[in-house]
């Protein structure tokens, strides 16, 4: 287990206050956040290249924040890979082993296995400038993993790659992880990559940990508004808590002049009466009602009437922009193409939409809970 405790770091006007991070062994933990959120600062603090003003770093229970980088057994793969240009691929790979006095004469079975898995055996005598993009990525990973580090730190290593190569290396990372079971902290701002690679995800925005947990948790049930905004979620509607039914475990929330009652576990935390919230309505789960078709009882309370403002063809989906009557905002509705075709919608058309209460997710605006 690798832990960051109460990290306090100040650089110019930027602050990271009381940051805590727990990395489980043998997991790929993703540190996700927009550019400028402080991800690199956290990374540099863990490596030991940046002084911080408060906090501890523990690896396997041992405090390392006072150790120099070379004693922490943390391998670092920066965005530009930084393969040593004046050394051959073999010398690059051996670098960590030699520096940590782990190189044994002749063959090192762990290293050889790595070379085989990465399929770079035929490149050993070459110099980095003679390698293709994909080959460089493999060598960089090999170099980082060769000394069997306690933690592998990847700083957006795939950010600059073109889609085909990015996908290839992502798959490679996953399969390497499956076979070698290393512990990794992968820093990225790419949502797809985070979802693909991360066993656990920590979202860092403006120096604060907004949320951490399993990726499904983070992506489907964001706890705070900044996370929701960072994830690019559509249909974030402001509302207010009207009623809390403790017994039935339900809450009523007002939005857009209407009201909706939803299960209490569809909220990021326990809410209090009168609190300001943001309702997230998944675009895939808004139902467009067909004329004449009967409506299920459960939906009848949550019907909105309005107008189709715009229709966008997105290739595999169609996006319908819907404006409810008397409201200035729009709802985004994502429809699979076959559904869209059956509905035969047109811009300007008056329609009705319905939402299941389970399709809502309530995010409080204030964190933590305001005093009652």
């Amino acid at each position, binding site marked *: 287990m690798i832990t960051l405790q109460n990290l306090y770091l100040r650089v110019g006007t930027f602050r990271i206050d009381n940051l805590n991070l727990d990395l489980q062994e043998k997991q790929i933990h993703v540190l996700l956040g927009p550019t400028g959120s402080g991800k690199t600062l956290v990374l540099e603090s863990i*490596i*030991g290249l940046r002084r911080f003003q408060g906090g501890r770093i523990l690896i396997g229970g041992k405090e390392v924040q006072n150790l120099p980088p070379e004693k922490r057994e943390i391998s670092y793969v920066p965005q530009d890979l930084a393969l040593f240009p004046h050394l051959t691929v073999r010398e690059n790979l051996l*670098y960590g082993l030699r520096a940590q006095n782990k190189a044994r004469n002749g063959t090192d079975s762990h290293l050889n296995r790595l070379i085989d898995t990465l399929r770079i055996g035929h490149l050993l005598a070459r110099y980095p*400038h003679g390698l293709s993009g994909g080959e460089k990525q493999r060598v960089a990973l090999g170099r980082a993993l060769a000394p069997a580090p306690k933690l592998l730190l990847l700083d957006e290593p795939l950010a600059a790659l073109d889609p085909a190569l990015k996908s290839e290396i992502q798959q490679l990372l996953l399969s390497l992880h499956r076979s070698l079971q290393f512990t990794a902290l992968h820093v990225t701002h790419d949502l797809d990559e985070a979802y693909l690679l991360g066993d656990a995800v920590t979202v860092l925005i403006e120096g604060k940990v907004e949320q951490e947990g399993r990726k499904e948790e983070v992506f489907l049930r964001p706890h705070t508004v900044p996370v929701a905004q960072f994830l690019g979620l559509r249909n974030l509607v402001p509302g207010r808590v009207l009623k809390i039914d403790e017994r039935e475990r339900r809450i009523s929330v007002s939005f857009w002049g209407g009201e909706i009652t939803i299960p209490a576990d569809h909220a990021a935390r326990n809410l209090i009466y009168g609190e300001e919230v943001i309702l997230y309505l998944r675009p895939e789960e808004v139902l467009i009602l067909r004329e004449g078709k009967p409506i299920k009882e459960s939906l009848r309370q949550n019907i909105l009437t309005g107008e189709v403002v715009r229709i966008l063809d997105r290739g595999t989906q169609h996006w319908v922009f819907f404006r409810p009557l008397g409201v200035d905002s729009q709802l985004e509705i994502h429809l699979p193409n076959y559904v869209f075709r059956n509905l035969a919608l047109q811009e300007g058309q008056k329609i009705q939409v319905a939402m299941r209460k389970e399709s809502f997710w309530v995010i409080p605006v204030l964190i933590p809970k305001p005093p009652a």
Partner: protein
Amino acid sequence: MNFGKTAIYAALALFLFYAVLILSLLSFFEGKNFLTVLLAPDVLFSIQVSVLAATVAMFLAIAIGLPAAYALSRLNFPGKKVVDTFLELPMIMSPIALGAALLIFFNTRVGSTIQEKGILFVFEFPGIVLAQFATIAGLATRLMKTALDEISPRYEAVARSLGSSAWDAFWKITFPLSLRGLLSAMILCWAKAVGEFGATVTLAGTMAFKTETMPTAIFMALASADIPKTITLILILAGIGLTALYAVRLVEKRPPGR
């Protein structure tokens, strides 16, 4: 006129300017005298003194300049900007001013103690080395800082994460990668040291067979109104300089491991 052409003409014009200066020396030149002057014992001695002193001064400048350059390039410390500014001081201080300052220093209590208990500098060979060192040290540091700046600090970061101490990361990674730049900085500083006159003559004097360097010899020849000897010495100095500076070009062309 097209921009590229103008630029090339400017470069050629500059070359022509210096070439014409050298050529005009040749107009006074007496070929048969050249060897006589070159092989005269005092001239051979000043060539020796110039080359030896410049070499020692260069190594001293590198010895302190390289770590200083590393600090300025990679590290942050209080007063960094002040230090950086001071390095440029010798460029503004005329060489004579530098030499006079050194001479005055050895007049102070600290200075005279150094001379009594340690090494004699005033009017002695170490004075030449010191004067040359004072002239080139700032420049050496600047040039080496530039050479180091070109190497991304990420390499060292990765090396350290892989287990190298800061020292090792520097010697094994940054140093080999910046070697080209460092070498050309060294040669440039050496050449500048060889050509140094004002500070040297002020601090170390002009004694033939003791502290007379090539530039000093040129000055003294002119001061005795011996024009042919002056010209010959200038040509010798120019020859040494051009050879050294051309060597810089050759070093730049051969990168290690690429």
